[in-house]
């Protein structure tokens, strides 16, 4: 296959950036999207040009490092898939694709398709944990947790923190990311002690980091590679108002 690529190139945070076109030749349907880019980069390096910078690590869809817009859709057109797990058999010969970084004020561009997502760490720092020190925990089976509760907590905990939800949202809201952690911990008995302060502090941290508000349109859920449900945001809102009323 031959694939035409229009790629955002930006040499650094201060560069204005621009689109440059490339052609990927002899693309195999078994290649992953990033492997296709690897080959394009190999050719650029051989010509003495700087390769296209993009993030990736595990290349099996779990670390959350990779991610950029493929023709306007975070991680590309296949639902429930990170771009490292997107395979070229989903495209056809002659396709033209536009690659852009996540666009959000809270995710400044570092270079080309790489953005700074440290704002997510700051949200977790505000309360995305249970305050238990190492060493004092009681026996793991001492508190029973029903299977359906544990499964629901796991559904929320499956978030990989890639930032696709922010990139998809017209407000660049981090509500899906933040709410997934709040929901995960508020479902479990271990998360009850800090349930109120957690939601208040994490929501404040989300706002402080420059993410926008949620207007309930659901783009985040539609592009989430891990299928994190919009229900998490409803839970976060409910938790937030309960916390406010309790205060």
């Amino acid at each position, binding site marked *: 296959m031959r694939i035409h690529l229009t790629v955002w190139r930006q040499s650094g945070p201060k560069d204005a950036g621009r689109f440059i076109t490339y052609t990927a030749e002899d693309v195999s349907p078994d290649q*992953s999207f990033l492997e296709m880019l690897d080959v394009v980069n190999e050719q650029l390096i051989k010509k003495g040009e700087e390769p296209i910078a993009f993030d990736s690590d595990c290349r099996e869809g779990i670390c959350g490092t990779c991610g950029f817009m493929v023709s306007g859709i975070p991680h590309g057109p296949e639902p429930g898939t990170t771009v490292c*797990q997107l395979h070229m*058999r989903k495209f056809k010969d002659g396709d033209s694709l536009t690659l852009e970084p996540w666009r959000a004020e809270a995710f400044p561009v570092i270079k080309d398709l790489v953005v700074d997502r440290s704002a997510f*760490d700051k949200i977790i720092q505000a309360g995305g944990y249970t305050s238990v020190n190492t*060493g004092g925990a009681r026996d793991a089976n001492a508190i029973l947790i029903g299977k359906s509760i544990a499964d629901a907590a796991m559904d929320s905990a499956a978030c990989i923190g890639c930032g696709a939800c922010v990139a998809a949202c017209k407000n660049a809201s981090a509500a899906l990311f933040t709410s997934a952690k709040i929901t995960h911990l508020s479902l479990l008995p271990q998360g009850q002690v800090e349930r109120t302060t957690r939601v208040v502090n994490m929501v404040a941290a989300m706002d402080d980091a420059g993410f926008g508000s949620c207007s309930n349109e659901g783009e985040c859920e539609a592009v989430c590679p891990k299928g994190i449900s919009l229900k998490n945001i409803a839970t976060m809102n409910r938790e937030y108002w309960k916390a406010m009323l309790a205060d």
Partner: protein
Amino acid sequence: MTLDSKIPSGPLAQKWDNHKFASKLVNPANRRKHTVIIVGTGLAGASAASSLGELGYNVLSFCIHDSPRRAHSIAAQGGINAAKNYQNDGDSIYRLFYDTIKGGDYRAREANVYRLAQSSVSIIDQCVAQGVPFAREYGGQLDNRSFGGAQVSRTFYARGQTGQQLLLGAYQSMQRQVAKGTVKQFAQREMLDLVLINGQARGIIVRNLITGAIERYVADAVCLATGGYGTVYYLSTNAVNSNVTAAWRAHKRGAFFANPCFTQIHPTCIPVSGEHQSKLTLMSESLRNDGRVWVPKNKGDKRHPNDIPESERDYYLERKYPSFGNLVPRDVASRNAKLVCDDGHGVGESGLAVYLDFKNAIDRLGHDVVAGRYGNLFEMYEKITGENPYNEPMRMYPAIHYTMGGLWVDYNLMSNVQGLHVLGEANFSDHGANRLGASALMQGLADGYFVIPYTLAHYIAGASIEKVTTDHDAFKEAEDNVQSRINKLLAVKGSKTPRQLHRELGRVMWDDVGMARNEKGLKNALAQIPKLRDEFWQNVSIPGDQNNLNKNLEYAGRVADYLEFAELLALDALTRTESCGGHFREESQTPDQEARRDDEHFTHVSAWEFKGVGTAPTLHKEPLVFEEVHPSQRSYK
């Protein structure tokens, strides 16, 4: 020099308790005056950072990723072992200890492994308290499964994402300490040198991967938790940024590298599809609980697997190992896959694959139960191959997965360099020549949560640590060393990409230092590696400069280190003429093609001392003493 493992005296079951009591402590009020550098934020690094931060030390945490949560521990799928015996099926700390020693083919230290088994119990408690959503039974208790090589159900899991959930638990605990100010987080930093002052590890030199700046950090002690070296093979199940650089640079500063030839091949990975391949994807070993491994009895049988009748299938693991069947340890499963493929029974286009078949399981348990257990793995398989495992068997082939070797450490997890501690996969200590499934997560967290808080305190309280700053000459010398290497890399301006050279190195390593090794092949590798290294330094191409994000420059530096390290791995494999665990020497096998150990000559740890690139390293041997378990020929028949 003699290597002192510092194993405490006394009965095995009391060694760790006695040692903890005998260890020195640091007064709570004094801890904040001590700075500890931790490099790496996987399970070992993040758990160490959070635990030491909670205790009140001033922790500086470094990682190459954009967030500590990305570390490759996150990709572990199957589970974590713990000797809880919740299933009442005969498990105990002693049995986990025994299984781990035996699984490691009697090449690990008894005392370390026993401590690991003891710690396993507390790990699960700790993780549950953090809110790790482990799988549960309907009654609300924790669910367990049995996992490769074990005859008891002691593996705790969170769907197929156990590593992710455990890492997020450790990461979240660490972020809590970041908010409190006890842990300072330095993401996007790559450690490029270790700084020694008066023979003690006192700091590191890192490159800021975003700005390119070379930075100096000083501390009272340094902990490396930088993972394994599987990507020396180019294709492996490791993340593409995993590397040996931090460990190798420490080795070049004097830390001994132990048992580098102990590498683990994972039996169930998706086979290679072409030259473009950048990594191999592992399919959790838990699949072998219900999947049956087979190949066609007829060589070169090209029929679709569903058209091959039962009578013409060879379920070779069930046939050869009736008591363990498809659940034999990883090394045994991998080697047998290679044997049947070498013999012409391999399947798929390349002939380098075997089938893993779920038809019986689906018939027995129903589609929904199988989907509940393995649904996400089946989906992942379908994404990559375009084939649906509900309808036809998966194709699997072994791939490099984990490295048991690593920097030499004593019982306190301290290397032979004073103050340099090494945790998790980066050290060599607990898995011997082969690691059992679901034990890597256990070791990473045991080291970080439950070992290093005690042993690091003991070191800090007992050592005489001079007050220094980053203006010390040793920092300048190390920084100059780092800078000159970067300059040298950028000055080559050749015509080959780092990836091309890495791929060539990987091919040599897989062919000659891979699943089965022999003298001729190893000598060939030792002849090829220096040539490739020379070619690298004459012909590598790195466009751009060092003053911004330059992933190709980072990558080239890691490949350069691999081109030095690979030689040590091959030399260790050549020197160890026995077969044991993941290290299979064709010259040393039983008549039925099982690994044959040579306990008389090789019941030791091989710890190598760096003497210069291209110069033969010096071998130091730490004898392994078995007081509790009598080494026997492993048998899984």
